């Protein structure tokens, strides 16, 4: 059963159509990549799923329930979604521990919040960042803390917007492997935005390809090679060849 279901989603920002008639679904517990060139509407689609942008047409359903249509938008915190932005999204006046503690569910008692937040940082390999403020963290550390905060809320859906942007090439793969490990361990449904094909992508991974706000392809990465395509798809094909079996 799909956990995320979009039907004919259209979204307009500042008078410009950013998404038009996008329809897809993501099954519970699965991982999907959202691919597309710059300006194709990937980030907007994530924001629509998170309830941060209103729809002009279509519906977004989460777990079989209506989450957004052109009239109503379920508030973001009721969607059981963890969102990791491309740009830094840690609060600069709080240290890493306090930032992660923000994400903890309300039920966690105040005494246990610090311990729980520290536990999440440890799971993400960022325990030493606990007492530091965002401007004292490296790019990779800030990403881990942001991810820890998103996961601390125990979401069912994890939305990642280019989680490895601005990170050293040798850290990227490690971070992505860790995210996939958590995805499996926590039984998450994950949608990850990227604009290039690189490890640890696998040919069997599900890919959604957006171009000019329209969904051009939805299926396993290995089948993308067969899709008729634009120059961008041609570039992707060459990357798939480099990815290997």
């Amino acid at each position, binding site marked *: 059963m799909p956990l995320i279901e979009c039907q004919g989603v259209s979204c307009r920002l500042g008078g410009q159509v950013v998404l038009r008639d996008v329809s897809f679904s993501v099954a519970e517990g699965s991982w999907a990549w959202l691919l597309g060139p710059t300006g194709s509407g990937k980030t907007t689609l994530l*924001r629509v799923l*998170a*309830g*941060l942008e209103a729809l002009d047409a279509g519906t977004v359903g989460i777990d079989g329930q209506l989450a957004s249509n052109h009239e109503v938008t379920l*508030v*973001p*915190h009721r*969607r059981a*979604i*963890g*969102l*990791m*932005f491309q*740009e*830094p*999204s*840690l*609060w*600069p*006046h*709080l240290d890493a521990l306090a930032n992660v503690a*923000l*994400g903890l569910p*309300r039920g966690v008692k105040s005494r246990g919040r610090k311990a729980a937040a520290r536990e999440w940082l440890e799971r993400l390999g960022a325990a030493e960042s606990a007492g530091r*403020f965002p*401007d004292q963290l490296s790019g990779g550390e800030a990403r881990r803390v*942001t991810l820890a*905060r*998103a996961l601390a*809320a125990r979401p069912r859906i994890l939305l990642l917007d280019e989680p490895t942007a601005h990170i050293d090439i040798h850290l990227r793969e490690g971070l992505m492997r860790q995210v996939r490990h958590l995805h499996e361990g926590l039984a998450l449904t994950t949608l990850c935005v990227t604009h290039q094909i690189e490890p640890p992508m696998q040919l069997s991974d599900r890919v959604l390809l957006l171009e000019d706000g329209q969904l051009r392809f939805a299926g396993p990465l290995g089948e993308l090679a067969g899709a008729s395509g634009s120059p961008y798809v041609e570039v992707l094909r060459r990357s798939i060849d480099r990815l290997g079996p």
Partner: protein
Amino acid sequence: MNSPPLDGHPALNQGAGWVIPAAFVLFIVLPVLVYFLDRPSEALGVLSDAIQSRDEAVRLGRLLGRSVWIAALAATLGTAIGVLFFVAFHPLSTTRRAVIGCAVAVPFLVPGQIVAIAWIQACGRAGWLTRLLADAGPLGPLAGGLPATLYSTAGCALIMALHLYPIALALAWLGWRATARAPLEAASTLMPAGRLWWTLLAGWFRPWLLVAWLILFILCLLDYSVPLLLRRHVFTVEIVSAYDIYFDAAQARGLVLPLLVISLAASALLARLLVMRRWPALGHGSDRLPTLPPLNAGVRRVFIVCGLIVAALALLVPLGTLLGMAGGWGAYRNVFISAREQVLTSLWCSAGATVACLVLAAGLAVVGMWRPRRVHRGQVMIGAAMVVLFALPASVAAMAQIGFWNRAAGPALARAFYDSGLMLPLGLVTVTLPVAWLVLHARMRQTPPVLVEGEQLQPVGAARRWWELTAPRLGRPVLAAAALVFVLCIHEVQASILLAAPGQATMSIRSMTLLHYAPDSLVAAFCLIQLAILLLGLALLWGAGYLVRIALGRWAPHHAID
């Protein structure tokens, strides 16, 4: 061989670049230093005498306590009113917010003494509201409560708060501008709006509100005119009395010290808050404001109702009172004709002081900015000097200038300067320079270091670099600083009283003196004329800024940086 400048902005390392720091030291720093370091035993003797005489020590202690209490209460009330307006009106559309923002900022443009005069005319013993209550039959006994409240410590604090709350509102707005969109949206996926306000935004806005509280506290602690008019004997009144009524300069100098300790501590804390790197600099932020989480409809309705009540108190009562009291056009004409000279003096002194202040502040703001990743010793010293200047009561700045330039044994040039009529503008510059410097320096500080370093790689001369890259960055802050300095100069009372030459008077002095002998209608008419002139001045400044921006756009396309 030409070596590149290493320790300062090229504009300050070459040509006449040293003039501005030298002028700052000569005209501002030296007079204040000499005032405190010249015969310090005399000032300390005044304090030790007071401490030895128990009654005098108790009197001064009570006086200081009352001053601090009024300032703290006014700062708290002012900050609360600023927050109230912010929460009530921030979700409005940009146009509506601008209209309401301008309306609720008007009390800051009205000089403190005029706000006090308006309230005296409304709630004083012969005030229209008091008479209305007295004639209202069953409410008659309450009529006596109005003047009693107005002439109390709480009343004084409330009037100050109603005058200065726009500062808190502006700081809350700056905090909003500095809020990054991504953290706010990420947090909105984690918690409901109400919790977001209490657990996150309250903490985010706290430093901004603390900055607002400290600014209000210092301004109220050093204020003279409102407590004087409301008959609250505070430390600033005691200092001016010692100097100007009893002609005891040593006594005045000694009395300054306890007040200075408190204002200096508050000013240092304020500076610490402003330079802490975790918090963005003033004025930093994107043009598109992030959407704050919506408040519960009921809560917001309560805030709006309270906001409208306070707006009526802060705006309609004083302005309505003045308009009602002033009566017909005759009063305006008579008072304007009789006070034409004071209006002109006020305008030229304020305009001159504004220009001088901006030139000084701009020159000082760029010191050390050429090496943005290093702490520049010159900038640290300028910062420390500004902390002290901001903590000085205006009367002390004026006394320091008088003491420095009016020396019988001093050089003839100093005497000539003292007699030149420039003392009043100089006093106004001394008082307002920290504000202008803060606005301009904050803008320079928030420029990303990489941009400043990029400037140095451009193969252009210092003058062109200044014109095309530095000046456009300072454009808007210069206008903001000019408006602030002009308003503060027009409002200024303490330094004006002490520095005005015999026969010379400003509008603020005139309004204080009119209150003592002129009929209410003339006082009210003059207050409104003063407000109209101030608004006209600001409109001219805005228009001039707009025209300059358009004109410069042709030759300095980089204004888009701003």
